[in-house]
């Protein structure tokens, strides 16, 4: 199973396996990563699963699609690498992915 490294809002590092096909958001929820709230349950409607893809990974993860792009408008502190983690399905190619969790509870 590919691994994801989440750095939460308090700077704590969580390294965990996320099965292929599960979203990066689901991996965070299942492992109690602080700050990924995901109140719409992955429907791309809330932006509370916002995270920043680490610079080294931005190209491999790719850009958001149009729907995600619009929902990202709701995110508080948008930067380069901003993605809604519910919209990133895990795949082998992303093994080792580093995601910095945004402040989703502001």
């Amino acid at each position, binding site marked *: 199973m590919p691994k994801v490294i989440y750095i939460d809002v308090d700077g704590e590092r969580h390294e965990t396996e996320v099965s292929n096909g599960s979203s990066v958001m689901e991996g965070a929820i299942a*492992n*109690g990563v602080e700050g990924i709230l995901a*109140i*719409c*349950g992955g429907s*791309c409607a809330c932006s509370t699963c916002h995270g920043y893809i680490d610079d080294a990974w931005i190209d491999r993860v790719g850009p958001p699609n149009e729907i995600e792009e*619009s929902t990202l408008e709701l995110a508080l502190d948008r930067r380069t690498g901003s993605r809604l983690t519910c919209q990133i399905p895990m795949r082998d190619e992303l093994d080792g992915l580093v995601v910095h969790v945004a402040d989703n509870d502001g």
Partner: protein
Amino acid sequence: MAELPIIVVGAGQAGLQVAESLRRGGYDGSLALIGNEKILPYQRPPLSKQYLSEGMLEDRLLFRSSEYYEKKDIELVLGQHVSALDTSARSLIVDGKTRPYGKLALATGASARPLSVSGSEHEGVCYLRSVDDAKYIRGRLSADPQRVVAIGGGFIGLEVAGSARELGHSVTVIEAQERLMARVVSPLVSEYFRKVYRSRGVDIVLNVAVNRIERSTDGSLIVVLADTRTIPADLVVVGIGSSPHTELAETAGLHCDNGIVVDEFAQTSDPYVVAAGDCTMHKNSRLGIFHRLESVQNAVDQAKIAAMTLLGNQKPYDQVPWFWSDQLGAKLQMAGRSDGFNRTVMRGSMEDGEFSIFYFDDDVLIGVDSVNRPTDHVVSRKLLAAGANVPDQIIVDLEQNLKTLL
């Protein structure tokens, strides 16, 4: 003596959020979250959507893993019913035992309103509120093509109808009002969805009440309408609204009126008790009205306000309401209100299946319903929150970016 705990009753979307926001707000005292369902707190929206139509696994419904509650030092008490509240002694009866509290949050949610016609008790007549309900329906829909009747053309009835149709069942929706989702969307949107369902082979019967449900000799059901029409069914799913869980609050003497009445700070009529979510009749200070909402947005945002009040840091509830519903591939998203308008402006086109309807009270934008136009929805939420002036000519012109109005 150690400080008395904060107890949250109801471990659903709002209850979890109260607990989470208390910890996030710096509360490090003792905290218990008590719920009468056995499963870890879970999301309800997928129950009528992916859980039915895509066989979503139960684990994926859970909001948080069990370790999360340990880590946050939230005492999670599952499968236990709170049967009484004594506000003068500040204590609860939980599974027969007394538990004192310092402060209390009620997040007891709502339950499906029962159908009262004769035959409602037959096997095969069911509701959808909990994961157990959804499991039952999913089980029934896994058999060969079934005849499914949804009683009630609101969100839940329609989503179940859509999911059942996608699975290949034959589906009829019966609605007593003259249009679908009459309580929550405008006539334009109702009509649009009626056509969507029709075109996908779902029978929509409007303007007629159900008189009774009979069991035929072969064991299947017959739904008999007030105009004597009969509709055979293998499964009847009833979605005719919900009743807030106010029993606990009511017997304790808290002010209730179609919900536990709270002010804009989520405060009940007792100074040590707050309430949030589907169970509340609440004040929204932006809209200036009292209403009861059943939505994730309300559960979460109001729970945050309730937690702040518990922490002595009052902030009024003034969020713009929003909601979404997935129906036969159409994503309906709503922001603000779609009642009390006197004119509408359309962006996009119904024929293309991508449009937003902007509702105005004279020149004031009060709400926007979007179908497959998520960008409009998101920007509308911001426009409504900002109280922005939104000219008609910008709305109708798809070349114009609504964001420029912010």
